[in-house]
């Protein structure tokens, strides 16, 4: 976690159950199962309800880019909507900057949305009857900003996403990539602290997706929002995330840094995901390094650093067989790694 103190977003034991009298049914199911999540979920399903999110808990630090990854139907979009309170969570606690959002009044909720939250949608969610500029300025308009200030601020974010010159266009006149730029600009118009992105790049073709991912990282590099980013694409998750939560059937099965997910999958499900991933590009030397008290820098110290990717490290010690030292940023030796371990970590795991 990059921040300190109160997390930007905190979820504790969040359940989202769809169906009649969900709350009561959930309480009863939990009581009967003695708090066991899986058997409670099973009994809910048997009585015709749909437990879409099951006992999810996680925290997102200030300025952290937190990715929730899962296949369709895993509950990843549902939990985002619980946090934004587009739907009411059945039970559990959700806090934004320590403020319990599940108990916020309607007015407070509107205020929070106007000042604190921005959201980007998979299919853009652009208002078809408004121009690019009007779409981007709409959140400012509902805040009651006057026209001149609206226009100035809208222009700022439109430039940020590189859409200058298209202000007067209607959504239907834009390409998919351009539409999502409008969606991003609109979500940033009020300069929110918390940024929700619901599969923002999934509807785009691969080249445009890559381009927008890079721009997204650039924007995030300067704005440092606290982000929940939903995706079903493991490569996207590994590329963008500070930390990743992997969801399956409504449960969070693993939370960890990209390298953890790749090198230390919590179960077969996560392992299946990371099997096709080029691990060498996502895992760092630090993840296979062993702490060593002393190891004199030998004549052929390849100069490994803890934050190097495995690919880069391996390229430097192709011909070495002895453990080699690993340095930190200041050049101090903080551990050692056996080149054979580097290669072993890259092995595609057999099922």
């Amino acid at each position, binding site marked *: 976690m990059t921040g300190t103190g109160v997390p930007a977003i905190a979820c504790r034991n969040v359940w989202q159950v769809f169906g009649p009298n969900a709350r009561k049914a959930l309480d009863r199911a939990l009581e009967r199962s003695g708090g066991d999540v899986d058997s409670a979920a099973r009994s809910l399903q048997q009585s015709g309800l749909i437990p879409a999110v099951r006992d999810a808990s996680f925290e997102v630090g200030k300025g952290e880019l937190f990715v929730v990854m899962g296949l369709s139907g895993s509950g990843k979009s549902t939990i985002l*909507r619980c946090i*934004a309170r*587009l739907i009411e969570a059945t039970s559990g606690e959700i806090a934004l900057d320590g403020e319990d959002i599940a108990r916020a009044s309607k007015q407070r909720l*509107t*205020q929070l*949305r*106007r*000042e604190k*939250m*921005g*959201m980007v*949608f*998979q*299919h*853009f*969610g*652009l*208002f*078809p*009857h408004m121009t690019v500029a009007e779409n981007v300025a*709409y*959140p400012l308009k*509902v*805040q009651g900003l006057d026209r001149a200030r609206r226009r100035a601020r809208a222009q700022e974010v439109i430039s940020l996403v590189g859409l200058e010159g298209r202000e007067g266009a209607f959504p239907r006149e834009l390409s998919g990539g351009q539409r999502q730029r409008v*969606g991003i600009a*609109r*979500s940033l118009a*009020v300069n929110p602290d918390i940024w*929700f992105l619901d599969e923002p790049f999934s509807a785009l073709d691969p080249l445009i997706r890559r381009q927008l991912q890079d721009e997204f990282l650039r924007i995030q590099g300067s704005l440092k929002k606290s982000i929940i980013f939903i995706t079903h694409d493991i490569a996207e998750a590994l590329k963008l995330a500070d930390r990743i939560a992997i969801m399956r059937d409504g449960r969070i099965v693993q939370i960890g840094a990209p390298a953890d997910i790749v090198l230390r999958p919590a179960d077969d499900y996560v392992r299946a995901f990371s099997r096709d991933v080029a691990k060498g590009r996502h895992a760092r030397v630090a993840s296979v390094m062993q702490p060593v008290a002393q190891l004199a820098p030998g004549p052929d110290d390849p100069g490994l650093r803890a934050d190097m990717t495995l690919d880069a490290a391996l390229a430097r010690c192709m011909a070495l067989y002895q453990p080699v030292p690993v340095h930190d940023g200041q050049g101090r030796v903080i551990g050692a790694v056996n080149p054979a371990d580097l290669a072993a970590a890259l092995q595609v795991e057999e099922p």
Partner: protein
Amino acid sequence: MTAPSGQAPAPRVLTPGVRAALIVLLAGALSLALEPAFPWVVTWPAEWTLPATQWVGDGVGWLLGWLKPAARLFSDLLRYPMGWADLALGATPWPVVIGAVTAIGWYLGGLPMAALGFVGLSFVLASGYWSQSMNTLALVAVSVPLALIAGGVIGILANEFPRLKPPVQVVLDVMQTVPTFAYLTPLLILFGFGPVVGLIASAIYAAPPMARNVILGLERIESEIREAAVMSGAGRLRQLFEVEIPSASAQIMVGVNQSLMAALSMVIIAAVIGGFDDIGWEVLLTMRKAQFGQSLLAGLVIVVFAVVIDRMSGALATERRRHDPRIAYGLLGLAVGLAVVFGARLPEASGFDLLAPLADAVDRGLGEFTAANGDWLAGIKNGVMFFVLLPLRIGLDQAVLPFTWGFAWTPAMSGALFAAAALLCLVLVWRGRAMAGLMLLIGAGVLETGIANLPWPFVLVGAAALGWMAGGWRLAALSVGLLSTILLSGLWERALLSLYLSGAAVLACAVLGGLIGLWAALSPTVWRLVRPVCDMLQTIPLFVFLIPVLMFFQIGEFSAFLAICAYAVVPMIRYTRHGLISTPPELLEAAVASGATNWQILRDLRAPWAAPTILLGLNQTILYAFAMLVIAALIGTTGLGQSIYLALGRADVGLGLSAGAAMAILAFISDRLVQGFAAERRRALGL
């Protein structure tokens, strides 16, 4: 199958459908066998009926009496806007009206639409029906805003309060299935004779399409657009009016279009009660005087209005592009300029009678034509009556007479018919098509007995069986319950007569429309020819269909049959073609790659794929047929339509409403049955 013996399991002969058909067959056979001993099996005895008609009359009469003062006040209030609209349209010099319509046409659809408006209104002017047309238009101009506001408010409320939605939708369904004439009787009592009744009736009739489209449009907004508005921090009202309604505007404009057409149609139908010098009245008058040339001319004026209003309001929904408003203002200015410059020297609008010679020529030509071809026309008419309609209505045993068929029907022939049917049935059962065999046997029984003479136990059991197969026990119970109310209210025979005529028309439409649809699906050229005809037939107000059939076949059941067919065939054509051509291309490619011929593809792939769509077309055709049945009562049908029409003449609320309700029940049941079968087909295809 993993049966160790490797044998395929024996096909189940007694599928639920076959069992249901067997029960129906048994009920029919029992009824026929018991008929001589117990005549009440066929004719529901009069002493068993409840005086429901009278109760409805008294109850509603009491309610209406209660509402009357408020209604009269309302109608007095409505006289003001109507007076204004009348004044505005009647007193405005005709060049300005034509100029304004042309200008609107330009703005909405460019040159073609402007030309349509100009030519259309010029035709109206030339016909000499200008002032009557403006009266009609004034009624539409007042009733449509009322309908749009009412429909819009209902639609928005149903959207805001989800609990309201199901009941609202039921009410909308009922309002659209209750025949138009049935509305008029209670309104007549409430508001008295006069144009206000037409106005209110058309507002009531035009509101449901608007409400329906508002609901549909709001439902269909992408959830992300809705969520984006919420996340922008907009309050509920702002979400609704700044985001949701504008996003749904295309669908809402479809509602405006349908609402306009419904209002126009109803205003013209309402002319039946008279009291207003409008174009519908003109059609009715000339039709009664057998001045078909004039009647046709007035009918064409209605068609022109329908087409102009439909195309222009349709452009609101489909065309996003608007044309240069400066040219529109220019056109309007030109028209105003003309009116000012020529002022009083403009000829009186109603003075134009340029087309009167044409009307006379039509009359003369028609006279000569019918004189020359009378035998041939009468041949068609009698042929269809004697060999199709009458047997369907009263059964072969009564319809086959020396006078019609050249011989009399004997019990031996009945026996032979049943024996042949039974034999064919056995062959079919033996070949594993038990359902088809049983249906054949039931069909033979119906043909022998005649729809109007069907024993009521058989109809009830049949409806239950169909309901059970289409939608389970609940639909079966609902069908039987609703039909029983008709039986108890003493409207049973009339209901069967209505069922027979609409059934015959639906059958004809299904065959004819199915074939045309198939042909249009196979040949784009045919579709290019058929499509404008379909468009036209759907735009024309119901009333106008009566004119041409009357011209050639006079008053009578055959004319009514033709009018119903002409109106109801359109959905069958459209849906059949649409179903057949919308087979997914990858399925077709897979079939071609497997080496299927065109015919095989049509039979094995396109037809099953199209089945649910074609069933929906059939459903529409049934509803259209019921709607037209009541209008066709004007030119001589028996059954419920006639009762409704008579009730209107006698201001008999009880009869009008009961017969209207019976009609709505028939339409409702057939709608649910066909929808049920269509849903089942869709499920079977995994759609």
